């Protein structure tokens, strides 16, 4: 899965003097208010943070507003899906028109019929709706399946993703993982190695909270963001 990254951020936070009684709590609260929202500075959705306060003393800014600035060093886990990235998510609803997916347990994605490659045909089997591949009988997508799909667009406000299952290396993760090695046509280079490294062969568990990714991610390359 792509779209997840860890950033070392140097931040300056401006706190209202009324917060001076409990600074560390208000810093956490301030950062907490950024969670699960798209932030342009970070160019992504903040999923988790780990913060260090550098200043022992804060500076009171001159000017009309007597806010005081605090320098922070924070470790941020960001989610920033970009078009053509590969994401993974769990199918929660499936109809002839569309497949609804939830990514990382919080972001919803939809793959509409025109974005599903012709290989998949909509069927109902024992009153269960599913998309089954014509060429590979075992390649089936139904409610509960973890699928890998490409991002077409990302609505930053609602955190809504429009995805696609057009390209061949998308579909049910379980099936893809089992058949990737055999499939010579599959272009391995499109899967970035670093993502494979930390994810391993395991798929992202639906119930896991974003915080729990922290351990995995520390291994990956760090990106630096300065503010």
């Amino acid at each position, binding site marked *: 899965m792509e779209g997840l990254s860890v950033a070392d951020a140097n931040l300056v936070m401006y706190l209202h003097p009324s917060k001076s009684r409990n600074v560390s709590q208000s810093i956490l609260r301030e950062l907490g208010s950024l969670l699960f929202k798209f932030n342009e500075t970070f160019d992504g959705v903040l999923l988790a943070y780990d913060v260090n306060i550098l200043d022992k003393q804060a500076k009171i800014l001159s000017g009309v507003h007597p806010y005081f600035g605090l320098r922070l060093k924070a470790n941020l886990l960001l989610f920033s899906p970009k078009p053509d990235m590969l994401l993974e998510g769990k199918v929660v*609803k499936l109809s002839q028109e569309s497949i609804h997916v939830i990514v990382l347990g*919080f972001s*919803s994605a939809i793959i509409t*019929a025109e974005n599903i490659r012709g290989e998949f045909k909509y069927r109902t089997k024992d009153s269960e709706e599913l998309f089954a591949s014509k060429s590979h009988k075992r390649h089936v997508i139904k409610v509960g399946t973890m699928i890998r799909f490409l991002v077409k667009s990302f*609505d930053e406000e609602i955190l*809504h993703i429009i995805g696609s299952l057009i390209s061949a290396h998308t579909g049910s993760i379980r099936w893809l993982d089992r058949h990737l090695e055999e499939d010579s046509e599959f272009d391995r280079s499109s899967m970035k190695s670093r993502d494979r490294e930390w994810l391993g062969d395991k798929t992202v568990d639906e119930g896991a909270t974003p915080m729990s990714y922290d351990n995995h991610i520390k291994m990956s390359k760090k990106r630096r963001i300065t503010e």
Partner: protein
Amino acid sequence: MGLELPKYPEMEEDQVFNFTDSEIVSHVKQALASVLSGDNNSYNQLVGVMHHSKHLAPDEVALLETTLKALAGAVSSIDITHHDSLLSAIFCMSMWNYGPHVADALAELIVSLAISNGKYLDLCLGMLVSNFTPPPYFLDKLKMPHGLERKGQVLSRVHAAFKKIADYVPLAPLRLLTIVLQGMPTIYHKDRAIVIYVENMLKLESGEIGELVGSTILMAVVDRLIELDVEIGWDAILQDDFSKGIFEMELEDVDDIEESAEPDVGEFRLSRKSLAGNSIAELLDNLLVLTFEHLESCEREGRLAKVFETLLQSFRVTVLSAYKSKFAQFVMFYACALDPENCGMRFATMLADLFVQDSQPQPTRMSAVSYLASYLSRAKFLAASSISSMLKRLVDWCLEYCEAHDGDINPNAHRVFYSGCQAILGKPVSIDKALALFRFVLPEEPMINSIIAIMYVLCFRMKVFVDVPRLKSELLIPLEQVLKHKLNPLKAKAASLFTVCKTFIFDGLLESELSRAFGGLERLDTFFPFDPCLLKKCDSFIRPMFVFWSMVKPTYDDAFDDGDDDDDGSSDDDLVQDFVNENEDIMNDEFGKSFDEQGVDIDEFDYALKKMSITPKATSNYKFGGRFQEPARMPSRIRPSTSPESL
């Protein structure tokens, strides 16, 4: 293509089985697609169908339902720019206008739209939220069985739709929260819409989404209660009845209050009457009842503790800091009553914690201790041990305070105060009198406030402490230490006390007017929040858990006539005589001394007092001291001073 559309109502009727769902869906898809190529005919017909709202014929209903279902299947073809007229027609639809089938189809369409694209999410949630309240024409029908049935249908669908959307779009509750809070009718919407809106909010709170949005929603409800509360000025309550005091307003027997047709109007009712025409008061009454019922349901579901934490937090932030909130605090009271051991104690502990923390702002501490006093006094459900442990805490704090501030006590404020305290300890009967006096003292210090609080609780709970000797030694003795700490009250020349006292009695005023005259309106310390609730419906919830002064009074009667008559202080001549005799002693002991010192002509003073008839029964029986002590005696049938000569 376009020409076929109007045909399908007939087809629905004549050849029902000739069209499958998917055919209709593809038909609608084509109609939607044709807009892009400039052919608007069939699309316009589609939009036209959406505008059918009232007095629909059965075939129109069928057409509408089919169209909605087909649209739900074709949401991916809807484009926010090209099909805006269709979308706005859909979002303007109100489920209240349709029967269950159309409402089902509409809810399905809204859910499909919301999850199909992020752009529609807010619009869809907004549309569902707007279905919280019925269209204006329906408001009157809400009480009728048909209206109630429709209400149940619509609301269950709306809330089910929220649930579905949240299942597919996990962050939807966050957006819903903002929409619900923004859509909340302001206090200027004085109609019933807000009641049903709040009902929906509470329903959301208790629903599955409630886990995510519940606390914020509950806080918003409490905030709205406070806003409404503040809208009802104290003036509205007091304008006809300036003598509404803590003890005065509840002098009527419970039965009397309920017989509202009775011609002689008690003070309690008088103040209620002044609220009667007040639409905000009615609204607030209804909202409070809703909240109480919600709390009851929380209790039944076993999640009161969680809800209570939210309430506690919101109480701290809004109610406690609101200036003299009149009704909103009863939400806390009721929640505490539902679970006295946990919630009840939690509330008292929080208030005590707030009070003893030096870091808290002064007004917060003041009002915390007022709330605590009033709560401990009025809550019938509290165990004696919990009350005494709380009081113990206050007394201990006072002792500590005395030790810490040995030198810098302001003697002027304290002198008067102490004399009152001394009186209380010596003769419990004059507690409320002394309390009334404290209210003039303008004490600023937390110490004084805490003592007022302790005294106030003691007024109400004296019986508890008289009955249990251990408590007496644990509480009253340290308390006495506190009071005797700096000045000996009996030696105090409390000049101001008696000037004030005279004004007070002559004008026949009690708490409210007085506290205003003495700057009380700006002050929190003369405020006891859990005085009897003046809202009618709300009061019926609170009443069973409430300690009224009339219930406490017999304790003091007993103290006087050795328990041979505790029949609610009915005007028994012997009793009165005993009472007078005893009170003459008190007069001589306490007040008379000071009067003499002041050179106040006691006869004259008392004559004036006599003229001020608070109660009809107290005509000639009372003499000097008895008259003076009269308010403490609390006859059960004190009449308001309604006739001019009584003043």
